[in-house]
Structures are given as C-alpha cells and as structure tokens.
C-alpha cells in the first residue's frame, strides 16, 4: 500500500517535493496561477478535506473552495509559495480544524438553544457504506474525536509526519500532540475491547 507523505514546510521555505511538483509561474497572473494550482492539486485538497470531514463530500468541496480562495489571496499579495503541495496540506488541515471546531461549538447544547440551529452531523460509517466491523469502529471513534485529535492522528499514522511538525501545524507542543494521538489510540483499543466482549 502506498503512503502519501506530505511535507509541511513554511511558505517561503523550499523543499525537495517542491522540485518535483510543477512550479507555479511567479510571473503569471494570480488568477492563472491559482487556476493552474487548482487543476494540479484540487484532488489532493479534496481528499484531505474528505479525511478530516469523515467522508462528507459537500463539506469537503466547501473546504476545497475556501483553500483555493485563500491561495488566490496569497498570490495577489505576492507571497512566494515554493512548495504548493506543502502549503495546501497545511492550509487544508488548519481550515478543516477551524471548520470542525466551529461545528462543534454550534453543536454545543447552550449555543444550539440560543441560536436555534443545528450543526450538520458527520455521516455515520453505515451511511458511508462501511460494512467492515473494524473499519466502522475506527471511523466511529475518529468521528467522535476532537478536530485536533483527528488531525494529529491522521497526520501521524497516515502521513507519517513527525510529532514536531504536527505540533507546528496545529499550534501545540510535541508532547501535547503525542497525548492527542495516544488518546485516540486508547479509545480505539477500548472500543475494540468492548466489541470483543460483546462479540
């Protein structure tokens, strides 16, 4: 199985992966540049959004749009982005965390009562057509995990990014990131143990 390794680097810092990716022409107009970036990277951004959004396609499309709009603004400001894939990964992750946190806030009982609205719940594994028991269990635990726990967990176990880099992305220390990942792992273990007892 192939692993999609993402390097999260600061905007102005070049990286090895940047050399492999089609360099966005600096001289091109911002609109052309962002369109070019969109053509090359929209599937990647959409995939990351799907991951953090628990498979909600409409939600992922919204995130994709927001991320490329932000890229357009960066180009207009004249920001040099040497590693578009890294920038997009980082921006998408942060955008997803922000959106998920907002959704959780709106889902809080007090806010729900006050505003009279209801945040959209992520799809259940069953709704996503996940029939495998263990897969459904992991999906359920991740759906209930906090945005930062979810992001840290994916970045660590799927993208294999170091704890330090994850900490830089989500704005926490390496130790706290480790704690977030350990919490999700413990919940999955507990759920498996509970499933075993019932099974």
């Amino acid at each position, binding site marked *: *199985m192939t692993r999609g390794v993402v390097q999260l680097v600061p905007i102005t810092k070049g990286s090895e992966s940047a050399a492999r990716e089609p360099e966005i022409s600096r001289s091109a107009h*911002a609109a052309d540049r962002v*369109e070019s970036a969109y053509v090359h990277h929209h599937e990647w951004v959409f995939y990351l959004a*799907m991951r953090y959004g628990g498979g909600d396609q409409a939600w992922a499309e919204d995130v*994709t749009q927001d991320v490329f709009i932000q890229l357009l603004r960066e180009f207009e400001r004249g920001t040099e982005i040497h590693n578009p894939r890294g920038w997009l990964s980082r921006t998408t992750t942060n955008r997803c965390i922000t959106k998920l946190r907002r959704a959780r806030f709106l889902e809080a009982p007090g806010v729900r009562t006050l505003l009279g609205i209801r945040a959209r719940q992520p799809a259940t594994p069953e709704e996503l057509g996940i029939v495998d028991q263990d897969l459904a269990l992991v999906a359920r635990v991740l759906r209930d995990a906090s945005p930062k726990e979810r992001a840290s967990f994916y970045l660590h176990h799927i993208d294999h990014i170091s704890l330090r880099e994850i900490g830089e992305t989500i704005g926490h220390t390496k130790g706290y990131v480790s704690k977030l990942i350990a919490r999700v792992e413990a919940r999955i273990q507990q759920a498996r143990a509970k499933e075993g007892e019932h099974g």
Partner: protein
Amino acid sequence: MADFDERPLQALDARFRSKRISSAGRERILSHLRRAADADRGRPTRRLILGAAVACGLACIFSGMAWLRMTNAPAPVTASLPEPWSLDPSCDVDMAAAERPRLRSGCQMAVENEPTHTQLRIRVWETAELSERTHGLSVHSGAVTFDVEPVLQPGAPPIEVGVPFGLIEVLGTRFAVDAMGSGGHVVLYEGKIRFTHTSGQVRMLEPGERLSWTPAEIVAQPDVARRGNEDAPVDVDVHDTTTSVPKPSAKRRLKRSDPDAQTDTMLEEVSALRRSGKLREALELLESLERRHRGRTREVLSFERGLLLEQVDPDTACDHWHRHSERFGTGRYSDAVQRRIAECSTLRPE
C-alpha cells in the same frame, strides 16, 4: 503508539482517497475562483483611485496651509515704525502692512496723538491689528489694553479708539479692548468712556464695567471687569474676584481666620456697590479694607480708593493722591499718581 494497528485506518483512508470530487463541484469551485479573481482585479484600481484621491486631498490641505502661512507670514521686521509709532525695541512687530501693523502678544508701545499731544500706551495681549486715526487708534482685531493720558487741552477732542462696528471715546482712562470680526468687548478699569455702536446705540461705561457688541448691536449690559493681568482692575490684582455679590449666607460662612477670603468678599462688595452707583458706601468699605492690609496690597487699595474719591469728592482726591505719593513713593502707580497730582495742581492752584 508504536504497536498500534494502522491497517483499518489505512483502509478507511483509502476509501476517502478513492472518492473523487464531483464534476459539478469541480466546475463550481473553478468558476467561483474566477469570479473572485475578477472581483479582485478591480480592487487595485479602486485602491489606486482612492489613494490618488487621498493624495490629492492631502496636497490641497498642505498647499492651503502653505498659502495661509504665506499670506500671514511676517514680513521682515524693520528697525522702526513710521511716526507717530514709538516702539518698544523688544516688541515683535509684523510689518505685513505698514499702515496696519500687526503687533504680537506681549508687545508694549506708546503712540503719540499729535492733535491733542496725548500719549496712548498700549499693551497687546493677543496679536492685534491696529491702525491710526485722526484722534487715536483703531483696533481691527486682537486684545489690547489702553492707558490714555488725560487730555489737558481745554476743548480738545477726546481720544478715539475705533473698533469693528463701533467707536470708543476716552478722556484719561485705562481700558482693555478685545476686538474681532464678529464684534468684541471693552472693559473699563478707570476713568470714563463712551461707546458708540455703528447702529447708533450709545453707552457710557463706568470703571469696572464691561460692554460687549456684535455687528448688529450692543448685546451685553455693562458688567464687572475681570482680567488676570497687571493692568487689570485693582480688585483683581489683590485676589481674583467673581462678578457677583456673594450671598449673605456665604459671607457668614467665612471664618475670621481666613483674611484672604474676607478680603475677597469685601472686594466683591465694593465692586457691587460701584456697579449700583453707591460710591460712598464702596469708599467706606474700601477704606476699612485698606486699614487691614500692609505693603503692596495696601498700595493697590489706596490707589483704588483715590479713583473712587475722584468721582465722589475731587478735592479730597487731590489730598489723597499727595498722601499716597508720600506713603508709597515710586510704587507701581507712581506715574499715574504724579499725573493726577499735576492735574490737581492745574485745576486747583495753591
């Protein structure tokens, strides 16, 4: 973390990865990006226009300020003013218009009025624009205090001080004029003046009274003068006083151990009595007050009493000026007192 089984997670991730963005969604995002780019394309132009407008506005403001500065800029100061101006060397004069000198605050000068051979001494408190007139001066703007020598020539016309929308006629007096384009006011410290408004209204002023005017008319009733300068009326020199007579209750509240407060109250009473024309009562009160004080305060009170005496009993006033001169010698009012003694000698040869 090390022995965590990643396989189900990877399988779940592979599911997500296999999902493709819908073609409708892809097109929607792309068209949205194009719209956003088009909208932003106009933004720099708008910013440019706004920036240009702001720059133009600032340029207009600065050029306006520069123009104002040029028009108000003081021309080189000349060594002397044309006759009959006699200038204090320390006086900062703006000779922008030779016929209408602009005198800065703090400037003191003497002006000789040739027809009457009378000297007008002036002190400028706020930048003033002055000009000559046949029998005096005109104050076009600014705040100026006048000290005018008595006109001793029999039948000589009075000294005139022109102000916007009015004329002040004086005969041996001390007063302050605050003139501006929209009117002004005059405060009389000693002597007597007559204010004639361009509308035809005429008002006589007594010492301690104040009169205000506008382009249309005289608006304020005479009031007690209050100025905090050395040319201010006597009662202000001793302690700052208010224009109103204190209420009896307030007077009763004063403690005997507070002589300053008592003096203030009595001076206020003197002012009130003068305003109401009860000069003898004012004189008695001032005399009792004078006995309580020593030094400079006593000198000031004595001078003030002399001014009151001139109005009540001119003969007694002459004796008073002699006594004042013997007691205080070269005090701050020596010049004025000597003038009065000389005047007494002229009118009442011994």
